[in-house]
């Protein structure tokens, strides 16, 4: 068992290292560096910089060094919590992200919770009452949920909120709590707003998990051990929860990491449409304005979150499933 766990942790570390290379490559990809755009900016203001000045600036910023040196410099900073400097905000990247990251985390984990808390019971219901009205309703809703792009769903919600309630469904806080310090009232206000992005982000995942839960549980319910248990007089509820659900929950747990990937993937767009004060709009703006250190840091953080999530779901699966714990991969 120790071997399996150590293996997973090692793999996560390797992934993180690979991600850092990808993120660094991505932020170096657009043509021209910061100095180029700075010179351009100055030129538009009528100030012409000499070649020497430009070279000197590159020197002080360390942009004239070979790529791999710059990479290790960047990674070295990241390890110590220094993500570089955002030229757009004229502040350290870590500060800007620090303000907004908690909201992204809250959003991601609430969505994950919402997904599983709704999908598992509904999946069980749909399997046990196969072809009932409720099952059909959830199937139809599932198809629509899977097919609707997140941002489209958010737009429609915004529209109906405006037409029927005259309010904006966007944002995470009411006006009076926007800049207020954290307090009980602010948390309540946050929860009152949070459900909109959570539902928008979670619907596709919920639809998918309901399908998985329903299908695997149906497979289990047809097996002989269920009949045997029923014949020996186990109560229907206990029979369901004790064996088939426990078996069917494994594939669901193994998708936590993957589900988190989807949530993190969808979050920036939903953040923009609903104008959430989280990292989503920050990320897209950083990309559009080529604010590269900020964008790179966010890519790194998003991927890091997913890797941690996958690790957790792997470990959970090891705890849940003795077959994996014992080292066989069957």
């Amino acid at each position: 068992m120790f071997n399996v766990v150590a293996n997973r942790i090692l793999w996560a570390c390797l992934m993180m290292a690979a991600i850092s290379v990808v993120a660094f490559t991505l932020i170096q990809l657009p043509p021209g560096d910061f100095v180029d755009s700075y010179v351009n900016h100055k030129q538009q203001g009528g100030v012409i910089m000499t070649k020497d000045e430009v070279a000197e600036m590159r020197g002080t910023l360390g942009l004239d060094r070979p790529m791999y040196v710059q990479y290790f410099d960047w990674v070295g900073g990241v390890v110590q919590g220094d993500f570089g400097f955002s030229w757009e905000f004229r502040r350290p990247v870590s500060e800007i992200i620090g303000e907004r990251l908690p909201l992204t985390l809250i959003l991601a984990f609430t969505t994950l919770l919402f997904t599983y808390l709704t999908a598992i019971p509904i999946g069980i219901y749909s399997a046990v009452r196969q072809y009932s009205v409720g099952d059909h309703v959830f199937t139809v809703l599932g198809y629509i949920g899977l097919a609707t792009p997140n941002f489209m769903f958010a737009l429609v919600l915004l529209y109906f909120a405006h037409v029927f309630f005259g309010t904006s469904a966007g944002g995470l806080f009411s006006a009076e709590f926007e800049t207020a310090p954290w307090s009980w009232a602010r948390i309540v206000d946050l929860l009152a707003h949070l459900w909109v992005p959570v539902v928008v982000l979670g619907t596709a995942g919920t639809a998918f998990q309901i399908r998985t839960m329903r299908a695997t549980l149906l497979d289990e319910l047809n097996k002989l051990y269920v009949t045997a248990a029923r014949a020996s007089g186990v109560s229907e509820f206990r029979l369901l929860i004790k064996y088939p659900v426990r078996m069917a929950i494994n594939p669901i747990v193994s998708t936590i990491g993957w589900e988190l990937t989807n949530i993190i993937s969808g979050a920036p767009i939903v953040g923009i449409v609903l104008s959430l004060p989280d990292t989503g709009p920050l990320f897209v703006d950083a990309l559009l304005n080529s604010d590269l250190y900020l964008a790179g840091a966010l890519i790194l953080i998003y991927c890091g979150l997913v890797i941690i999530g996958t690790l957790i779901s792997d470990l959970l699966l090891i705890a849940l499933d003795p077959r994996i714990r014992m080292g066989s991969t069957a």
Partner: protein
Amino acid sequence: MASAGTNATVAARTAAVRLTDTATHWQLMWWKFRRHKMALLGGGILALMVFFSLFAEFFAPYTPQERTAKYTQGAPMGFHFIDAEGSIHLRPFVYARVTKRDKVTLRLVPTVDTTTRWPIKFFVRSDDYKWMWGLIESDIHFFGFEERKEFLHLLGTDQLGRDIFSRILYATRTSLSIGAIGVLLSFVLGIVLGGIAGYFGGMVDNLIMRLIEFIRSVPTLPLWLALAAALPREWTALQVYISITAILALIGWTHLARRVRGKLLSLREEEFVLAARLSGCSHARIVARHMLPSFMSYMIVDLTISFPYIIMAETALSFLGLGMREPIVSWGVLLYSAQNIRSMILMPWLLIPGLVVIIAVIAFNFLGDGMRDAADPYSQ
């Protein structure tokens, strides 16, 4: 179909032989697929979409960039057969729109004038267009008007007075073609990489599988956003189109590669592969000629399933302004103008392209479900 006919007669003559015993593999699959009514429906919807968008120049009354200056931010216009006096007209018509100045806001507002009718003409001659890369030139449109001042915007117009209906037709062509090319590219990538991994196994296999695992555990959208943002801004619309398609193709291949690898690994030990090897076939020939066809149907299913992912990814990229750009219109580009909440509330019909996206994706999912069942026609 001729073989099906002969089969039927043979089956009728010798009653002992059932139809299912003599049918080919693909026939069995088609029969199984046919039982899925929803899959047939999905396939039908997609076929219609392809048809209408293929002939967009003919069906669309306007070009995507054409503006009706008198009818900006215009609501969808219905057509009628019965006029205000109650008399029936065989030729459908729209009521004239007159622009009036609102006394309070002083804005120009188009109002319906029920006294004047604009009769709709079919197969009408108006603007020239070239179709199929200029092979066919024509000026016949499915519907339109003889007079220049008359107009019909079935699904309304946007801020600039561009016809949403026409734009959707053209956008459908772009979005579906991106999906198709993206799927094809990922097909090639998946077969080549999955094939190498599965056929040779060992070190190469390990490396490719790690790469796939890596790609699959990375949040894709942020990465594709970053890649798309790295495209130079001064690129032409066509260059952007090609590179966005290529970027999106990188999403779909991992799933297929895994499937190909898994199948190849299990087929590698089969006797027909050994036979092929002994008779001196090259590696490439064994894979392409003997192994791949044996699970072709599964690959087609995987491709159908990855289609909607590519379409949705394109829509999301363009919606954020990082994907396709005007003058090329795609579903995402059309939805880009709905990004502004105020204009969306003013013109809810800007969301109609989103509805088209949802319908297309649902249709693909139905089709995929039916094909998944049909891929294995021997299970009951």
